[in-house]
């Protein structure tokens, strides 16, 4: 494995390998306090065509904790925004000796194009491409779930028996796509919940079920993942008003009270408090939002480790 473009690039064992590596890295770095020398001398480029400070910082911290050199190549204010093509930028990064390129791009498939067009030899990691995928977000969500329910030491499909709801703008969500693929790969029973306008055509092909109502089976889910809803969806007539959306699909305190006691709440952030999630829900005890952030760094370390270090290195860490 040299790239991470889609969850489909991972076998079950590879996905578990990354999650277990993340757990080991957590121990080795004493929860992130210590740096590891593993990727000293490696150059890792953050190529961000979309503003996403959170994701960029998460990758940057991950790379630095592994002692890699990090170059931030933001599209804003650079030659990229002046019409330089992805190809030209890729070739520049190649000339700079990048070992890995972490790309965030507004176009679905941009990471795949970067990896498969022969423009660049570096490993490519998809940090979100259009409305396609965001594989490291799904890995960090899976890691958060696995830790919380203490499932990491199980064998094979570690999430068998777990019921997960993913709620919101499924149609435009790369987080939803990657999570659907990864969580079902790990054995979870996943339900997509959205108004029909925001449910993709043929969603059943993802191996998930779907529901237009959040209330139907709310008490059954072990994990409820709320997606960010963008207000421009309203102007495009996907739903009538923010108020109606919040009423029908928002996780308010009343719905929070109907969830299983052991259930957890995930949100990839940034949250629209009062829209898809109420302030009480966001700050509730079973909200894992902050854990998601810290787990994000660990999982991204594990991904860099796996892609750049190779399998033997990972085995060593896992055994350590």
């Amino acid at each position, binding site marked *: 494995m040299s790239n991470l473009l889609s969850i489909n690039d991972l076998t079950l064992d590879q996905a578990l390998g990354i999650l277990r590596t993340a757990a080991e890295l957590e121990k080795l770095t004493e929860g992130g306090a210590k740096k590891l020398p593993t990727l000293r001398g490696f150059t890792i480029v953050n190529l961000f065509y979309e503003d996403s400070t959170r994701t960029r910082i998460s990758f940057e911290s991950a790379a630095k904790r592994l002692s890699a050199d990090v170059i931030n190549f933001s599209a804003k204010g650079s030659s990229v925004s002046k019409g330089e093509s992805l*190809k030209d930028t890729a070739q520049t990064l190649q000339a700079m000796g990048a070992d890995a390129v972490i790309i965030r791009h507004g176009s679905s498939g941009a990471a*795949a194009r970067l990896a498969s067009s022969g423009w660049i030899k570096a490993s490519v990691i998809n940090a979100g491409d259009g409305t396609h995928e965001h594989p490291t977000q799904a890995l960090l969500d899976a890691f958060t779930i696995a830790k919380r329910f203490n499932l990491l030491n199980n064998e094979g499909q570690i999430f068998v028996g777990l019921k997960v709801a993913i709620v919101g703008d499924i149609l435009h969500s790369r987080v939803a796509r990657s999570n659907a693929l990864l969580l079902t790969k790990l054995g979870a029973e996943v339900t997509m919940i959205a108004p029909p306008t925001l449910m993709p055509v*043929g969603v059943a092909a993802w191996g998930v079920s779907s529901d237009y109502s959040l209330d139907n089976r709310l008490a059954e889910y072990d994990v409820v993942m709320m997606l960010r809803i963008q207000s421009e969806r309203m102007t495009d007539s996907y739903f009538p008003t923010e108020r109606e959306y919040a009423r029908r699909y928002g996780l308010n305190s009343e719905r929070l009270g109907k969830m299983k006691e052991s259930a957890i709440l995930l949100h990839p952030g940034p949250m629209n408090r009062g829209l898809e999630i109420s302030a009480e829900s966001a700050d509730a005890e079973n909200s894992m939002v902050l854990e998601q952030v810290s787990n994000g760094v660990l999982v991204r370390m594990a991904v860099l480790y796996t892609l750049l270090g190779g399998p033997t290195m990972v085995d060593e860490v896992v055994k350590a």
Partner: protein
Amino acid sequence: MKSIVISDVKLSDGSSVSIGMRDGVITEIGAQISSDYDETILGTGLTALPGFVDLHTHLREPGKEDAETVLTGSQSAVAGGFTAVSAMANTNPVADTAGVVEQVFRLGKEAGLCEVFPIGAVSKGLMGEQLAELGAMATSAAAVRIFSDDGKCISDPLLMRRALEYVKSFNGLIAQHAQDPRLTVNAQMNEGEISSTLGLAGWPAVAEESIIARDILLADHVQSRLHICHVSTAGSVEIIRWAKSRGISVTAEVTPHHLLLTEDLITGYDPIYKVNPPLRSQRDVEALRTGLADGTIDIVATDHAPHPREDKDCEWAAAAFGMTGLETAFSVVFTAMVKSGLMSMERLVEVMSTAPARIAGYIGQGSLAIGSPAHITLVDLASDYPVNARSHLSKSSNSPFNGLVLSGRVRDTLFHGVAVLRNGTLTGERFA
């Protein structure tokens, strides 16, 4: 002008003949013909067909000469066995005045390799608001008969009605690019499971079918002729079949790529497969093949859409829509339709030559009859070969068929009795 005989050649019905031509006109066809010709083209192993006629060609001149010119497009056309092409109006400036269509017409004459018939825009600047000067284009030296805003749909039903009515006075034809713009905002590929998985905005079949249904009803209401460009869905075939059963005056075209390729090719995000209307499902491909074989779809048209390399060498959403098609059209149609047993060679001649010539009123095209201009294509039906887009004569090489092994190859093209293509190579000769 040299007199030429093509000896020992087969016709589409399989019979062996020789074809003689003098002064650019076919003078003799038969098993035994006279022998005093200046030049003999040995036709052994080859099949002679009337030159192909394309009703949908983007030649890009004026405005996008880095992608194609009328000259390079003509060269590409004859390499594909075409002796007539129809230059779409979405150039820059738009072909919406007599001046622009006459310029394109004149460039075609200067190239002298095949006939270049300009298509006029329906609306001024392709803006879909006001009619362009259709009458002026019809009476110009270019004698335009087909009008199209191709690239854009005439979505305003009132403008469409007026256009259909207006062209009746000079027997014009409106060719509609059927795509409801509101149902295809930002659309990138066929809407379905694959678009959902790839996260690409969907181009639903209904956006094509709803416009076709509306325009068929309008054409019936005003008793005018309608031509549907690049039909791409099974539902469209059904609607057109219904219209024809009611005797409504509608004709339809299908592109070679929609007869052979499906949306499954898009999973790697290679923009070489980005085209409008998009590649559809296998079920659609099968319906289109059936429709072409049974006469619901009248003709094949290439929608040859050349683009410079940088417009495809990028991420999917940034890439241009369109594929080159002139030089692969015959091989694709032969492979998909004739070799597969779905239709005969006679039907291939009908859909690639006779019917388009008849629909557009291109006199002298689409016929091997004695007295017709000698527009003849010689093809080798026994040849299987890998497509090499780099060897194409088009200025652009955005062919989705590159590397595919196809059957049936164009060898020679004669235009007004001038051999402009011999053994797959331009001779340098032209008709003046």
